[in-house]
């Protein structure tokens, strides 16, 4: 998979020779700022298209041949998001956001209280996202993603608003809950230590300079495989 961005003055070439995610696994992608982590995550989420992809499949479906509508349908069926900004609807309460996400996937809303209790946000369910802290928002976003029981969760820096200790706790909970539902969790983070502690496998972006820009290549970090 190849994606080029930038202008004629400075090009950034993002290359992904190989990327495989086993079922119910926790895969982390790390790299320096501007290495292409978020760009890659957007491509995995079918938000951005690659410039070329030899064999890009999600749940066995070849992505290259899909129309825009089919990509939207596939995203809805297989992928949930935990965005850096939370990704919650401002006009719904936390509870309504989670329930809405569940209904959208045809999932039961009866487990909302249990799930939010496990994440420690049971007391903010009737508040709107704008009225809670960044960390609470991210926990709510995680709850929203988990309630959908999607095969894949894409998480972009989900613990960025938390302190180190809280981030570790959250990661452990997130990973366990996802594994319990059979969900493959793909996370982008700049926190390498956090990644090494919890990831089943880790991919790393490495950057090298080219004639008119840089090339960022994603490779599996063999030191971090479980």
């Amino acid at each position: 998979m190849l994606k080029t961005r930038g202008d004629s003055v400075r090009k950034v070439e993002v290359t992904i020779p190989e990327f495989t995610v086993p079922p119910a696994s926790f895969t982390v992608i790390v790299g320096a700022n501007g290495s292409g982590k978020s760009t890659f995550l957007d491509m995995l989420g079918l938000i951005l298209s690659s410039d070329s992809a030899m064999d890009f499949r999600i749940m066995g479906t070849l992505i290259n041949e899909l129309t825009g509508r089919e990509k939207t349908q596939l995203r809805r069926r297989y992928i949930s998001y935990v965005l850096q900004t939370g990704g919650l609807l401002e006009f719904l309460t936390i509870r309504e956001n989670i329930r809405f996400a569940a209904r959208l996937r045809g999932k039961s809303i009866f487990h909302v209280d249990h799930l939010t209790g496990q994440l420690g946000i049971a007391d903010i369910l009737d508040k709107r996202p704008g009225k809670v802290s960044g960390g609470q928002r991210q926990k709510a976003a995680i709850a929203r993603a988990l309630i959908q029981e999607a095969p894949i969760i894409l998480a972009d820096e989900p613990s960025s608003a938390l302190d180190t200790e809280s981030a570790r706790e959250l990661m452990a909970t997130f990973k366990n809950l996802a594994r319990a539902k059979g969900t493959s969790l793909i996370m982008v983070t700049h926190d390498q230590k956090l990644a090494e502690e919890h990831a089943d496998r880790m991919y790393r972006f490495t950057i090298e300079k080219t004639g008119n820009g840089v090339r960022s290549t994603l490779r599996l970090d063999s030191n971090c495989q479980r």
Partner: protein
Amino acid sequence: MTIKNQSDSLDFLHIIRLVFADLRFEWILSLCMILALGAVFAPLFILLGLQGGIIGNMLDDLQKDPVSRLVMPKWETSLDEAWLASLRKETGALIESPTAVLLLDVEGMNNPVNVLPTGKADPLLVENSITLENWKKSLVLSTPLAADLRKKQGDPITLTLIRSTGQEERIPLQMQVAGVLPVKASQDSKIWLDAYLFKKLHQWRRGGAVPELGLAGGGTTLSPEYDGIVTLLKRIPSDAEYRTMIGRGLGFSQLPTLFDVTSWGYPAEQQARLWKPLNSRVFEHNFTSLVNRHNEMGFQAEPLPYIDDFKVTLRSDGKNIALRLSSFLAKEKTTPPSGSSNLRHVWISLDDKKQFPYPKAEMTFSTTASGEEIIIPVQIHPLEGIPQGYLVTDPQFAGKMNAARRQEAMYDVQAGEFRPVEQKTRFFRAYTKTIDDLEKLVDFIRTKGKKQASEALMEPVSRIAEVRNIRQLADYMKKLYLLILAVSGVSGFFAILANVYAGIQRKRKDIAYLQLYGLHPVSLVLFPFAKSLVLVSAALASAFIAYGIFSYQTDRLFIDVLGSATSLTRLDREQVMYLVAGLYGTASLASLIAAVAVTRIEPGEYIRE
């Protein structure tokens, strides 16, 4: 490649849930928008209601008043039975009569009263709940007459039938008041009789018998009738003296006018005054009353019968001469010479005799009743003193000719008399069922008038002008309203478009997230669209409430003018449906145009901020 998801119809439900959640979240903004749109919609309903109420009340008033649905000829005219049969089909009620009105004397009144025919189906009676129980005995009074006579329903009342067939007959007719019509039915003193009784009394006046009332015939000849009386006096009464005579029951209600008889050879010192009745004719007994009233005031009046513009033709041996009938000359001058024939004698001027030198001729004239020609064989005499262009005959015969001219009559040559034939329908009062049918009936009658060259039918009497004025007013108000609607529609359109577009801009992040969740942009267009329609619906509801309050308050304000049963505002169901449909249509279009902006929001726009 087919990727199956939950049914798209469920997306609609998700969107609707989001719409109401968003409205709750932005409740202040939503309320402001509802009130703002309500302020645009409410005047539209109020104006529509006022238009419907004002015009509706005016048309209702017309509809309720039977006189508004009445069409009648301008005056009596000949009517064929075939056309009358088709006229009956065109009307809701038809009252037919041989004459427009009878003048009858009523006990307690100084002057004769106008009497009109009526019937069971007459809306004047039906809509005032009056029935003529007994056609021989029942009559209906107008309010002014009832007030003058101090009569009410159930009271006895005496009519006096007067007839001059050789000698004057006065026969009292005992009747009973069946009801009193309200003022709006007539502001004059009037009586309504059953149409059959009316016809019979008319026939009796012409000399016929009415066995049902025990009234005998008065001979089968016509009585003389005149159009006025010319009085010759040496000394003329003052206007005050004339008014005194009128007040004493002269049979005339207007002051006499100056009249010139000098061309007839009357001395200049004798002054002439012409007495003409209003809407009536003069009989022989009126001459006696007139002379007596003058005598009582100390004046000597010589009465001369006056006939209005009566054209006759003399024809003989292929030649014709047209003349005007008069009876002004002194009686001794128009006595036939002894030994003359049994033909009727007429006198013409010396100049006319030179043009028409025949001793005998046929004198012809047409009756206005049927247009039939009456032919009278006459002997012609020249006489000095007759102005050229005139024909003089015996005053009594001239009066009978005048009567025959107006009625259905024939001339019996053997007897030398006019004989009345039974008069057919020459007048009618036709009522339509509704105001809406009035125009059609008027056109129907006008068409007949044009075919028949009858002015009476070409210009029928009706309130069509009033109905047309109201309809024209309704038309103007409708056009004005449509103009206001167009202006409001345009302003409302852009207000809604701006609101929806602004809402989408406020919700860009949320809409991007919803796309990320997997909702298709086309489904997402529904989000701002449905939200806008909910606001429009609430605004319509607020407009209805505002209208209701306005209607209630104005009805209270104008209760003295309108009464408790009438409202100033009225909304027609169909019109309201069109208005609401139009508002929804405009709102939908504006919302949809603005909502398309959703499709330009990328799902990845707000992934990271």
